[in-house]
């Protein structure tokens, strides 16, 4: 549905988006991750046709955004960053306007407005002026605008920004549900959101794609992915470290927690250790040494760790 090729955007001498290519098919939810100023919003603005790219092509459906902007925009629903709204209108007035612009009239318009009002839980504020709404309601109003024409492509810039945990959960559920039939791109800073709602994630840093894969694949890139955690009661930390370090598949042993009664140790695998092999060896060692095992599990790796290792915070200076 969305095909982006060699997309580049320069603002004067500053390159905001540098040669990005990706595609999103129907039934996919693509999460955009990246530090602030990485080029997420700029990319989305180009895909929605708000700003023209400096180079590269964007296709939405069968339309090129640069050549057939109107046709391409028809297929897209867009929730911009900070959910901008015409504050002098009522929720109903605003949604009717959005529906009209999308070419809906009469019964169809009414139906579309009520459908998205229902999806976004806006019944209570339908005839309230937008400038009296709380942030959560404003966000949902803008969200309702984006889905009013049941678009095939949905693009959302930080859709859960500023919502409370319950609302965040609602929005994620909604995204996942709609993702079954649409092509969705959304950006976020919240990594758990990626695991909760995305089928695929792209990490962007300083205008470039630095990682692209399913949330599980990305987690594999983490340092702790595949490490084994064991809790051993009554074993001194030094002994545990030494013995575990002798396992051939172990690269490094780290003591996580040391108490009088037990020790919690993390064993990192060698580079090419098959799944489960290290766990078996640790277990075998424990049996041989007659250690009592209180806990043994394989770590999945954490997205925030991956995120930190492959992106640079904007506080570090760029090294040329």
């Amino acid at each position, binding site marked *: 549905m969305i095909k982006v090729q060699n997309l580049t955007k320069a603002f004067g001498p500053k390159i905001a988006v540098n040669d990005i290519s990706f595609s999103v098919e129907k039934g996919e939810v693509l999460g955009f991750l990246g530090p602030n100023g990485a080029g997420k919003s700029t990319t989305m603005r180009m895909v929605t046709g708000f700003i023209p790219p400096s180079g590269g092509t964007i296709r939405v459906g069968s339309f090129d955004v640069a050549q057939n902007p*109107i046709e391409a925009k028809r297929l897209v629903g867009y929730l911009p960053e900070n959910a901008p709204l015409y504050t002098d209108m009522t929720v109903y007035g605003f949604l009717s306007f959005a529906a009209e612009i999308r*070419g809906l009239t009469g019964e169809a318009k009414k139906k579309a407005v009520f459908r998205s009002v229902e999806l976004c839980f806006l019944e209570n504020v339908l005839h309230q002026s937008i400038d009296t709404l709380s942030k959560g309601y404003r966000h949902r109003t803008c969200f309702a605008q984006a889905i009013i024409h049941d678009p095939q492509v949905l693009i959302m810039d930080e859709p859960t920004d500023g919502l409370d945990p319950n609302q965040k959960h609602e929005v994620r559920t909604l995204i996942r549900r709609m993702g079954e039939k649409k092509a969705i791109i959304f950006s976020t800073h919240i990594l758990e959101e990626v695991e909760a709602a995305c089928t695929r994630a792209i990490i962007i840093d300083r205008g470039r794609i630095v990682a692209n894969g399913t949330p599980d694949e990305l987690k594999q890139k983490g340092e702790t992915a595949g490490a084994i955690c064991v809790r051993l009661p009554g074993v001194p930390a030094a002994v545990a470290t030494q013995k575990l370090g002798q396992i051939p598949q172990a690269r490094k042993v780290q003591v996580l927690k040391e108490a009088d009664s037990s020790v919690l140790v993390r064993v990192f695998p060698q580079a090419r250790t098959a799944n489960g092999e290290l766990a078996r060896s640790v277990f075998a060692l424990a049996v041989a040494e007659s250690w009592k095992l209180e806990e043994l599990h394989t770590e999945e790796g954490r997205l925030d760790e991956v995120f930190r290792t492959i992106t640079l915070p904007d506080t570090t200076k760029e090294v040329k």
Partner: protein
Amino acid sequence: MNALNNIKSIAKRELTGYFASPVAYVFIVIFLLLTGFFTFMVGGFFERGDASLMAFFLWHPWLYLFLVPAVGMRLWSEERRLGTMELLLTMPITSWQAIVGKFLASWLFLLLALVLTFPVVVTVKYLGSPDMGVIICGYVGSVLLAGGYLSISCMTSSLTRNQVVSFILSVVVCLFLILAGWPPVTRMLEEWAPAWLVQSVANFSVMTHFDAFQKGVLDSRDVLFFLLVIGFSLFSTSVILRSHRAG
């Protein structure tokens, strides 16, 4: 057909926006009070002993100088400030449709304010037997004049997200368009500049072109002048908006 529908939807939204806030009512009341004050107190409507609306239309270029930018200053600066421009221009419309729709809405609003001055016409009709042709012609000129100013405000509002800056810029440009053909200024110019130069500068002025309407002369060149001002300003608006988006 589609384009017309889009323009209509945008204009409708803009107009409801005006009336949802007190701005519209405050504007209309102030406009009517000021026109009344200038016509009857300053313009000496009764002392003229003349069944015409000369005293009424005479003040329009000056009144509009402040009132029209007050209506037009928010057109695009507000969209930029709130970020709704991103919403509007990612909808399946062209930026032309958005510009024209918003412009027409505020022009229509000014037209409404002007229609509400009908008691002046009633008064003059009651007191004497005025030439209705001249009055209608004056109104046509006034509408065009408002449209010209408004299109300039539209352009200046696309330059900035600050409404105050937009207002001041717009007043300055409109003031220039008045002064270029205002008799005291042209007389001053005549003292040192060649006649052809004075004439061509004056031709850029709204005064020169509005004058004919007041006298009841409906000249296609004057109509064309205002339409060109509107066309040029709206075109500039589209260029400015595009360059903002391109970064």
